[in-house]
């Protein structure tokens, strides 16, 4: 059974100028024990998707249509109290800035304990023992001593390990990681990504990893969702995105990443920038920047067309995608 099943999800935010739609018709799923990478640039809607799942859109955000099912339970109709009961044991989230997500005036060990006792996951004495175990498991040296530290006494990498320990405290079935390594140095990033893979295998949880970094996706995602302008523009198996991406945006984006493993003489340029929510053009939201665009692209939103086995691209011209090389 699918662990997470999102279908036709649309989200709007209330602004001074009226409601602005930031997600439109987003659909994808996560299976148990699988890592799904959700990748996109600023403003693509990838973080809003995760907040919608967690029920953390706040007062101004609203799910206008679509469904989110977690282990078969529909989340969009739950009360705040019912959602809170699911956060922790069923789904947990780690954020980009571990420094701002931890309580600065509470010992880190206590914060892990609290994650368990709040959900009556286990008695306090056992929670205390498990917190130290978890700290050891996420790679914190001398965990019984470090448990008494306050967040400011720890490095960024160590704080992110604490966040992971808190997220894992109640053994969630779904872990949502929103840019978990973006603020970290590259050797520490590699350590944290390795850890997420180890923990996923050990606990069998599903992971939704949100990132702007195609390299991170290549390293840990079994399947990939590419977002642009609040929509899913491509969905595929991990490797298929890199060998035969079927949407012009994904393909150009991949080629515009400067590589450390080979010298590039030129980086292809995607002209312009991603439009902000509320200013998306009619038709395909990428058409104004797309070298392959034709008249029809400005008229209607392309559906997610099949581009291969388990591979979909929101593009009218996906069958002709190889023409892109000559045009770009």
């Amino acid at each position, binding site marked *: 059974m699918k662990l997470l099943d999102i279908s036709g999800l649309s989200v709007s935010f209330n602004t001074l100028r009226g409601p602005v739609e930031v997600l439109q018709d987003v659909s994808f799923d996560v299976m148990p024990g699988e890592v799904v990478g959700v990748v996109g640039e600023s403003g693509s809607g990838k973080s809003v998707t995760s907040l919608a799942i967690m029920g953390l859109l706040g007062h101004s955000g609203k799910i206008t249509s679509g469904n989110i099912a977690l282990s078969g339970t529909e989340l969009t109709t739950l009360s705040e109290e019912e959602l809170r009961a699911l956060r922790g044991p069923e789904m947990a989230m780690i954020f980009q800035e571990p420094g701002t997500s931890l309580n600065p005036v509470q010992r880190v060990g206590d914060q892990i304990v609290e994650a368990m006792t709040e959900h009556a996951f286990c008695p306090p004495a056992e929670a205390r023992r498990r917190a130290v175990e978890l700290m050891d498991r996420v790679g914190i040296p001398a965990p019984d001593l470090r448990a008494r530290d306050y967040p400011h006494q720890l490095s960024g990498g160590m704080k992110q390990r604490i966040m992971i320990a808190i997220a894992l405290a109640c053994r969630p079935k779904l872990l949502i990681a929103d840019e978990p390594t973006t603020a970290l140095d*590259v050797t520490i990033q590699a*350590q944290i990504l390795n850890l997420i893979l180890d923990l996923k295998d050990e606990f069998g949880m599903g992971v939704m990893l949100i990132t702007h970094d195609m390299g991170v996706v290549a390293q840990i995602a079994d399947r990939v969702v590419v977002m642009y302008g609040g929509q899913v523009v491509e969905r595929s198996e*991990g490797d298929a995105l890199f060998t035969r991406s079927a949407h012009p945006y994904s393909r150009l984006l991949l080629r515009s990443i400067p590589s*450390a*493993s080979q010298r590039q003489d030129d980086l292809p340029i995607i002209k312009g920038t991603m439009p902000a929510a509320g200013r998306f053009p009619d038709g395909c939201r990428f058409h104004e920047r797309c070298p392959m665009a034709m008249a029809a692209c400005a008229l209607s939103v392309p559906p997610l067309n099949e581009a291969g086995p388990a591979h979909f691209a929101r593009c009218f011209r996906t069958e002709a995608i190889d023409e892109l090389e000559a045009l770009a």
Partner: protein
Amino acid sequence: MTAPLLKLENISKRFRVGNKELAAVNDVSLDVAAGETLGIVGESGCGKSTLGRMILRLTDPSDGAITFDGRDITRLSKRAMRPLRRDIQIVFQDPYASLNPRMKVGEIVAEPLVNIGMKRAEIAARVAEVLKVVGLPAESADRYPHAFSGGQRQRIGIARALAVKPRLIVCDEAVSALDVSVQAQVLTLLRDIQRETGVTFVFISHNLGVVRFLCHRIAVLYLGRVVEIGTEAQLFESPQHPYTQALLSAIPEAGAGRRGRIPVPSGEIPNPINPPPGCPFHLRCPRVQDRCRSEIPTLVSDAGGQAVACHFPGADADSPHQTLEDKRMTEGEAQ
């Protein structure tokens, strides 16, 4: 060989932290030739930004000498430095924090021109000229920074640096805050500007892909020391220092068939207030021997100009990155 445009000799910077001393930069020597881009890479706390600030004399070195165009500028007073501000400019990381929100873009770009005493009429022409160079429409001059995206703001920052026709621009993480598609635009812009004007760049970054695209030579810093320096080809094709090798292999690269765990040194960068004795990297180094724990390795240069500070330098057998020799062999086999 012609004299370098910028020469750093045994530069150190120590800060007082409580009653202890922190050596942010430790005995760094570097040459930058006119028209080249020198990359300075390393992780947080390695001293790369402090080094950049010292080149601009925004921070004074504790020891060592900085020579610009043959002139010792290490101890120049603020007043004496002023004419040199025309020659050395900087582009900062955060395009949101480095532009005054209450000044129009035209005023921001004109400010360094006013500072060098350029005439009003000439200023307007020069502002229009540099805005064009960085790919911004002329009417941008009358708008405020908030009206621009991150990428456009970084173009404004570059225009401001270019306005006075500097000979050297220090770019401190200049593309790090930008999305990939915008980053590609700005990197290409920087490279084209260099090709047209011959300006010299010192390009400070933690992103090795970006550095490989833009830089001719690269210095790798760890705990305030240069651990390796070489040309782009030397450093990326045949890194000799185990830290350079670790950095390169820790980068997740976009591509198929790369799923899985990355081999990476355990542990974290030591606290610079309390650095380990001996080689700064020895606590995390897979090749560590007794000598590394007590003796600081010096930077030794080979015939090709690649220099490495390691007691046991050499290609890493476990590294996914081939040495140049391996590469030639496999290419030979393919033919």
